[in-house]
């Protein structure tokens, strides 16, 4: 990394908003090559407090650190300039986190609100158990994307791996490419949209009619994800057959 990335604008978060405004719209740059992750996350967490602080942040030299920008709870923008490790933006609330690289497992796990995006690929379990907010993967998503999702919306520009939307309870998963094996296994009330092929559907997941209201829903999700060039009418919809909601011995073969 060149010297430029070592720039470190040391505007104290604890100095309040006025100190930030003194450097205009300057972005608070934190270089993880010199700043410990703990310090970065603590400063980002402190933004939820009464003192507030800078609203725009840029993290350089992330070098695949785990737990980057996790537990945020303020309306701030954080740009990660490189690759992130496990659990980037985990349990996010309110914040907008953008990864300009690839992200490791558990990206935006259990997100509550706000939005998280990754320019590259996301490893397995992206958006796991997420309860709200929007996750956008501009590359490919690996296995178990949207596993256990509970209200999050996930839009994948590329394809999603096997066991995606496993036990998906609520929310929407949109896959513009293909979906791997066992899509939506043991799904509850989440809605799944896939434009390409589906290798196989999991237990109790079935194709359903794509009605106008679903096209409208898709258009809105794609727009919010910044994917205006994708035709919302070109998707197929999948959801729960609701056959396994009550345990019946006659269904035992389904597992």
């Amino acid at each position, binding site marked *: 990394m060149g010297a430029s990335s070592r720039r470190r604008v040391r505007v104290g978060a604890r100095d309040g908003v006025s100190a930030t405004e003194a450097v205009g719209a300057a972005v608070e740059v934190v270089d993880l090559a010199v700043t410990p992750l703990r310090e970065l*996350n603590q400063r980002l967490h402190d933004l939820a407090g009464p003192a507030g602080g800078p609203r725009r942040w840029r993290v350089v030299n992330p070098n695949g650190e785990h*737990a980057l920008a996790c*537990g945020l709870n303020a309306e701030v923008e954080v740009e990660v300039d490189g690759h992130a490790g496990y659990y980037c933006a985990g*349990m996010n*609330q309110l914040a907008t986190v953008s990864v300009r690289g690839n992200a490791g497992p558990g990206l935006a796990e259990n997100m509550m609100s706000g939005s998280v995006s990754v320019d590259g690929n996301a490893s397995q*379990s992206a958006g796991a158990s997420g309860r709200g907010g929007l996750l956008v993967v501009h590359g490919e998503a690996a296995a178990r994307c949207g596993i256990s999702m509970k209200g999050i919306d996930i839009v994948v520009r590329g394809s999603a791996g096997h066991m995606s939307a496993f036990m998906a*309870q609520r929310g929407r998963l949109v896959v513009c490419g293909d979906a791997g094996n066992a899509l939506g296994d043991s799904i509850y009330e989440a809605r799944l949209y896939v434009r390409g092929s589906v290798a196989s559907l999991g237990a109790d997941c079935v194709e359903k009619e794509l009605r106008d209201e679903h096209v409208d829903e898709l258009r809105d999700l794609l727009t919010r994800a910044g994917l205006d060039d994708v035709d919302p009418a070109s998707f197929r919809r999948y959801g729960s057959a609701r056959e396994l909601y009550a345990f019946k011995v006659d269904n035992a073969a389904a597992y």
Partner: protein
Amino acid sequence: MPSPDSHDPWSLRESYLFDRATIAEIQRAAREGIYDIRGFGAKRRLPHFDDLLLLGASISRYPLEGYRERCGTDVTLGTHHAKTPLELKIPVTIAGMSFGALSAPAKEALGRGASEVGTSTTTGDGGMTAEEREHSKLLVYQVLPSRYGLNPDDLRKADAVEVVVGQGAKPGGGGMLLGHKISDRVAGMRDLPKGIDQRSASRHPDWTGPDDLEIKIGELREITDWEKPIFVKIGATRTYYDVGLAVKAGADVIVVDGMQGGTAATQDVFIEHVGIPTLPAVRLAVDALLELDMHRKVQLIVSGGIRSGADVAKALALGADAVSIGTAALIAMGDNSPELDEEYRKLGSAAGFYDDWQAGRDPAGISTQDDELAARFDPELGGRRIANYLRVLTLEAQTLARACGKSHVHNLEPEDLVALTVEAAAMARVPLAGTNWIPGSNGPA
């Protein structure tokens, strides 16, 4: 039943292999075509703390004055990494039990009772209720495979975090809550449709294996700014290895739940046939901690079949820092009360036998989501009973510790114990009473 007059005793011999309970279960299975799901823990006889005895002081050891000299009971959990460890006044905590499995007033009572005597209570598979947070001075927040109700606000409100890998009643199994207990409120907290049979995941959605667990714990520490102790709870199976891996993954506290540990709803076959008893599990956990030089640095909580102060004292003597109670806490609050015998009989059970905690029809108002049944339960009275029971457990453990000459319950040690059976001697690695024989050991301890 045939009378002895008409049948000779030889023809009335009951088969050991096919006893009346076994015959009834075969007939039920053939009739219903589904495995038996029930609450409670293992019912079979297992090697347990009853198979150990404490050696009181005599000439070579001197006792403490039973009614006068101080015997400490405090325990601090989470001294390894956490900025704010849990300071408990007694070495007995309340185990994780979900709102869903238990009614809201029952959860409140657990918090009231635990807080009154200075110990902690624990959430469960389904999230944190406002009632239990309000009434629990110290509340441990569970992060389970299902992640039902999990949210960072509650995580930050908690006093400690417990990553649940498994529980003694069903190591390797996920939670289960049958449809009749999924009320509007439970469904809302869990993001599920009302009334479905909820069978939750047995694996965490975003980590697999010890290396991932270490990173997961790191994330939870980051989110909570390294303030809160992080517990890892495991069902007792390969306990020596699991404890070692959990310590290496960065846990502050290890919770080991033996196979006698209770459950609100699990297959009977799972409860009775998976896992190892609490007795060997304690010893294996302590072995792992000693080997890593982490005994007393990473604290050990043991659960699964703790009923009395004797169980507490013996678990601590084997090296645990604290114990947890679940089933016993429910009984203390009024579960299986003789006063409800008639109502239990209407449900096909009787006081002292009721284990249909999965059914949601508990006349005590504890293991139910029915508003009318839950309203029968008085959380203040329940809280007082929990506090009373916890006090008795503590007083009993102190009595035994003083008799062994210990000024703190943590000073109890394996040397204070002998075993009544060869099995218990081998599992607890203490000598068979009256001998210096520890089966499996090369010589005297």
